[in-house]
Every structure is written in C-alpha cells, then in structure tokens.
C-alpha cells in the first residue's frame, strides 16, 4: 500500500473491509482473513503479510478495528506478549527470512499458531557480552547441527519454536561468526527446564541443545551476519518491553481516572493518587512531590519515545528511542514499585495468594528488574548512549579484533533449575 494514502481514505477502506468481514467472532477464519488482508501487521513488508505502512498510518488501521471491537489488527505495534514476538522475531523474519520461512513462520505467528516461542540468546557465559556466546552450529548437508546451553529463555515450557543465536565461525572476531536461526523445539535433543525466579514464578527457562537439527532455509539473514539481525530484534525488544511492563502496572487503574479539562496532562496518574489516598497521605507534601515526579517521568517518556521514533533521521533516532526509552522505563518501573510498596505500609511485608494487595505490589516492585536487567542491562544502555549517540571513546577491551577461538572465555557450567 502507498504511504502517501490520506489517513481518511485509509480509514474508510478499513471501515468498508470491516463492514464486509467482521461478524463479531474471533475464530480461526477471522484471524486468517485479517492476516491475509495485511491488517495484522500493517508495518511489515507486502511480501510478509504486511502493507508497508508507516507506524502512524498503521495506527489509523488499529483505531478502526478498536472502534468496532474487532481484534488481531496491528500486532506489530501492540504491548502484549504475543505482540512482542511479532514485533521482535516476526519483524526480523519478515525483513530477512528466506521466502519459505517467511511465508510459513510469519503467518503462523500472526494467525496465532506459533505463540509459544523462546528467544535463545543468553548463555551461562554470555550475558551482557552476548557476542561471547559458545553454542555452536555446524553444517551437515542441508541441516545445521546445534550443541550448547541457553539460559533465561522467557516463554512456555512447551514452546514450539526458538529464535537461536549460535556460533558458525570461531576463527573470526566474536561478532563476525554468529548466525541467527529459527529452530523447531519439538524435536529430540531439546530439553527445556523451568527456572524458579525471584517472584517465585517460573517464566523463564534453561534450554539444553544436543545435536539439534535446523534446516538451512531457517537461517535468518546471511550466515555469520546474525549479530546485525539481532540488533534489529533487540531494538524492537527494548521498545516493547517498557511498554509491556508499564501497561501491566496501569491497566486496571485506568477506569475512574481523574479526567479534567487539563487532559492529557492529568491522565494516567490514578494508580499513584489512589495509592496515596488509601494510605491517607495525599496531603503529605513529600508524597505529593514524589507522585508528580513519577507522573512527569511517565509523560516525558511517552513524549520522547513518540518524538524520537517518528523523527526522520531514522537509524540514529531509533537507537536513541530504544536506549533512552529503556533507561527511562527502568527508572519509572523501579520508582513506581518502590512508591506503591511504601504506600502499602506493613502490608508490603506480605506476599502470596492470601495477601492479594501485598502480592500484587511486591510482584510489580520485583518485576521492574525485568526491564533493568533483561534485554540489555541499564549499564549496557548507558554504554550504547554514550558511545553510539554521544560519540564518546570506546573503552579498551582485550577481545577486540581477536579471533573468537583465542579470547578468554568464561567456563561456568550452571544448572540453575537443579
């Protein structure tokens, strides 16, 4: 579709299409229709079930679907978990996958046949220094054979597919010998074990890969060019993660928001105001200052993301939007979590299903680390901002330019799941 299309014209087309097709039932037939029409991921290219639309035009599509209560549109923009997979992995396969993979995988993802996935990037000895990963893929005829261990892979135990980073060349510096694959997890040699996390839940796993087979057409991008592919996926992840976590903290609170003529400045602080009211501390000037500071951080974060991600000098602005946005989210999530726990008073000492309030607030408080550690830590974001955006000198690193085979590597063998 043409990006010069007037928003009104586009809205009209969507309305017409909905009038003809939406019957009020979100079944398989409906989902396939939405995907084939391109509404499920309007920003994706036309050869990957998209329409090649800009983000702002795609939002026009989303608004029309929302208006009639029709689901499944604009999964490429949403904050949900499945939207996250579409935005990260769907995107790179749509852009860089071979035709066979693209047509099958992107379709499955958008239709909802592939919503259980794992990002198999991190390893026991490759976290922030992800390019130091040691899982190997060796070519054997028309398949790659994979061996290694992954960790912190978020998603269900019975996930059907994984986005895998593996080393395909040890004789070049670490970033240059990595490839990106889509791998079938329902095969022998794949063992997924849950890890119990700080909250007591198990949302991420350890994954052991032994002689796992990946067909050659499942490589995304060129062989040994996986690092570049990963950057696209990680950039998308950094934007999505903050949106996702913030949407959880605030959803149930939006009803009954204090709305006034001063909107939109006054909107979106209801969870904070309510917490202070319940604690009887809405008149405490220190608490009032805190609430306004937190609310202001939320607002300027939204504004900055919008401003930078719509800027025309896109590449640099996208990096800026992702890294600055992720850092801003960390501060918001940790500070809001701390504030809500404080407002709860001694109840914040409680946890578990019998103590709903304490449980919710403490969970929100702890889950803030998902943003400040996962997807590249806050420190790594600051490295990116200072080196890539401000152009400050790179730190001395002993492994620069050295073939992977020869650099010093961690040798921790961890088995966290026990």
């Amino acid at each position: 579709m043409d990006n010069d299309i007037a928003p009104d014209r586009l809205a009209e087309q969507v309305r017409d299409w909905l009038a003809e097709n939406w019957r009020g039932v979100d079944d398989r037939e409906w989902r396939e229709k939405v995907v084939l029409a391109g509404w499920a991921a309007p920003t994706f290219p036309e050869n990957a079930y998209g329409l090649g639309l800009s983000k702002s035009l795609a939002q026009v599509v989303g608004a029309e679907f929302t208006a009639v209560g029709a689901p499944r549109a604009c999964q490429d923009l949403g904050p949900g978990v499945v939207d996250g997979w579409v935005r990260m992995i769907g995107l790179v396969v749509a852009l860089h996958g071979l035709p066979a993979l693209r047509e099958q995988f992107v379709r499955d993802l958008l239709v909802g046949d592939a919503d259980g996935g794992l990002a198999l990037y991190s390893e026991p000895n490759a976290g922030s220094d992800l390019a130091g990963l040691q899982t190997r893929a060796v070519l054997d005829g028309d398949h790659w054979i994979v061996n290694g261990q992954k960790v912190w892979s978020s998603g269900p135990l019975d996930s059907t597919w994984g986005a895998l980073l593996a080393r395909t060349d040890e004789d070049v510096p670490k970033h240059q010998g990595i490839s990106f694959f889509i791998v079938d997890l329902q095969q022998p040699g794949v063992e997924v074990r849950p890890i119990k996390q700080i909250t007591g839940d198990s949302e991420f796993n350890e994954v052991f890969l032994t002689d796992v087979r990946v067909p050659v057409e499942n490589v995304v991008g060129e062989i040994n060019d996986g690092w570049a592919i990963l950057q696209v996926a990680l950039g998308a992840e950094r934007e999505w993660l903050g949106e996702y976590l913030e949407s959880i903290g605030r959803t149930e609170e939006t009803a009954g928001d204090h709305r006034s003529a001063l909107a939109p400045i006054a909107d979106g602080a209801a969870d904070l105001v309510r917490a202070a009211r319940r604690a009887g501390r809405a008149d405490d000037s220190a608490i009032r200052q805190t609430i306004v500071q937190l609310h202001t951080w939320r607002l300027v974060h939204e504004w900055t993301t919008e401003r930078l991600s719509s800027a025309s000098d896109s590449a640099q602005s996208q990096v800026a939007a992702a890294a600055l946005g992720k850092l801003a989210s960390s501060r918001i999530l940790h500070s809001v979590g701390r504030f809500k726990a404080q407002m709860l008073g001694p109840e914040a000492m409680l946890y578990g299903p019998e103590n709903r309030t304490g449980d919710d607030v403490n969970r929100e408080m702890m889950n803030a680390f998902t943003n400040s550690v996962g997807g590249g830590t806050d420190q790594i974001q600051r490295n990116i901002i200072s080196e890539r955006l401000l152009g400050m000198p790179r730190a001395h690193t002993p492994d620069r330019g050295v073939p992977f085979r020869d650099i010093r590597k961690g040798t921790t063998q961890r088995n966290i799941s026990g």
Partner: protein
Amino acid sequence: MVSVFTEEHESLRSSLRAFFANRSPESEVRRLMATDEGYDRDVWRQIASELGLQGLIVPEEHGGSGYTWVELGVVLEEMGRALFCAPYFSTVVLATSCLLESGDTAAQKEYLEGIASGDVVGALAFVEASGRWDEAGIEMAATADGDSYRLTGEKLFVLDGHVADLVVVAARTGSSVSLFTVDKGAPGLTTRLTETLDQTRKVAVVTFENTPARLLGVEGAGWTTLSKVLDLAVVALAAEQVGGAQAALDMAVEYSKIRIQFGQPIGAFQALKHMLADVMLEVESARSAMHVGLAAASGHEGAELSAVAPLVKAYCSDAFELASHQNIQVHGGMGFTWEVPAHLYFKRAKSMAVFLGDSTQHRERLAGHLGL
C-alpha cells in the same frame, strides 16, 4: 507528541546559530556581562532590523510578524545555547505578553511597534520582598489619582529593569491585582542594578515614589493576565534552558574526548560515560517537555497550558541544573575556573531554577491538577 519543529524551523535555527556564533561568541558574552548595561545596542538593533526577533510574536498590525511561540521557542533555544546577553526575555517574553494578554488595545498601539523595531526595552516588575511568584506576593498598592494612578513601593528581581523604557508593574487596587505601565524617566521612578550570580542576565531593584502610572487592561484583572503571562514565560524559559543544557552536555562530551589521563581519553571511563548518558536522557526528556509546552503556548490541540507549564518549568530547570553541574564535574579543576565557560551555564541554570518559582513549587501546582 511528535516534534513541533518543521524543516523551516530547523533552517531558522541554523541561521540563528550562525548569527550568534558571529555576533555573540564567548568573548562578547564575557565583555557584556562585565558591563552595567549588559547588552550591545548595535546588536540589539541588528536583531530587530535584520532578523525581526523582537517583533516575532507581535501582530503584524503593530509592526511585528505575528508568529507563534513555536518560532519564539527556536529563537530562545539558540539564545540560551549562546548565553546571548540582551534584554530579550524581559522585553519580548514578559513585557510583550503582558501587553498582548491584557487586551488593552491603546497600550498595544502605543508600545508594540517600538518593541518590534527595537526602540523599546520592556521589563516586568512583579516580585516584592517576600520573594513570592504568586498573587499573594503582590502587596504594593496603587492609589487612584483622577484618571491615573500613583505607585509607591519597591519591586525586586526585575529582569533588565535598569535599562527598561517601559516597566509593567503589578500592584493592588483594593483587594485585587491590576497591571500598570510606567515609562522610563517617570517622576519618582528609580532603578538600581544588583550584583547577580549570573552576570549574563541583569537584575534590578525598581522603586516607585508616588510615581504616576497608567492602568494596563481592566482594573482588577491583573492576576488573570499575569498568571497566563507566567505560564507562557516558563515555557519560553524552558526553551532557553534546553538550549543551555544541550550546550553544557556538548561541552562535557567534547572535553571528555580530548582530556587524557591514565593513557586514554577520560571519556573512555565508564563512570563519565554513564554520567553523561544520564544527562542525555534528562536533556532529551526536557526537550520533549519543551515541545509539548510550546505547542500548548501556541494554542495547538492537546494539553492545556496551565497544566503543562508547571511540568515544563520543573523538568527543564532540573535538567539544566544537572547538565551544567555535571559539565563542571567532567572538567575537573578546569571546571572550577573563571576561564572555562562551564560556570556561565551553571550560574544561568542555578538562577533560572529559582526564577519564576522553583521545581518543588511547580510540582505542587501540578499535584493540584492531578486531583491531589
């Protein structure tokens, strides 16, 4: 909120940047800050006649170009970046908007053309000994004298009051506040320059001794006008602060690349990288707030000015303080010298942080808007 600036704004920005680099380099800033007047009359006339800067938001019928606060924002951002020494904020932001917001067409006719042409310098005399930036702080009384009024009392922290041809004064008529105009040379009007932390911005004490004054706008409507002017003013100030904060950040980054210690540029040390990454987050956040503020000041659809203004003031003041503070820290001992201009930004940031009310006061205002 996407950017309020278009390509035309960016080209205005680059020509202004070139102009200030040429006519207001650091050497000029240092020369002018050491004088009592505090500005160069030739440059003041030049920015009026060649660039039309004083008349930017003055309507065309009064000799201006009738632009909006978005264009003014570009100008102020660049002035803040260059620490341009001139009575621009006092004349264009404070006095001009008092004239425009008062709705007083006679006063507009009398003064705006002179402002636009650069012949009239304006000031706003508002704060008194209490140091309060609100209605309750205005205690000075105006007494009716036939058709006119007489003022007696003292106003403090009057930006460029010592060089003003027109002073807009806030005083009480009965229990409510009214605005007045007083011309330079009026009987009983005296001004005294005070020594300031930020020498690039002059502040005067203005005293009135039975001084004749003319009512500006409607009697008793002074606070309505003034509170709108103050909301506009903090948004305008934010543009200056963002310009200054970005300049301080740029200076820090530059220095971190050239200063060598332990065999490498200090910018390679992560302690400094992370410090400046945090500064960048604040500067970019402040810039976003400024965009939203300028849009509201220009009456664009979206947020209400009276709600945005306190947010913008608090955020941009804090960001400029941080950026100018960390710039000194990055410079080490050099940062503590008079010679390196880091202190100029720091002093501007510090004094503008309390000018028009500090961050906690503005956050408290915003708290009221949140239903607290």
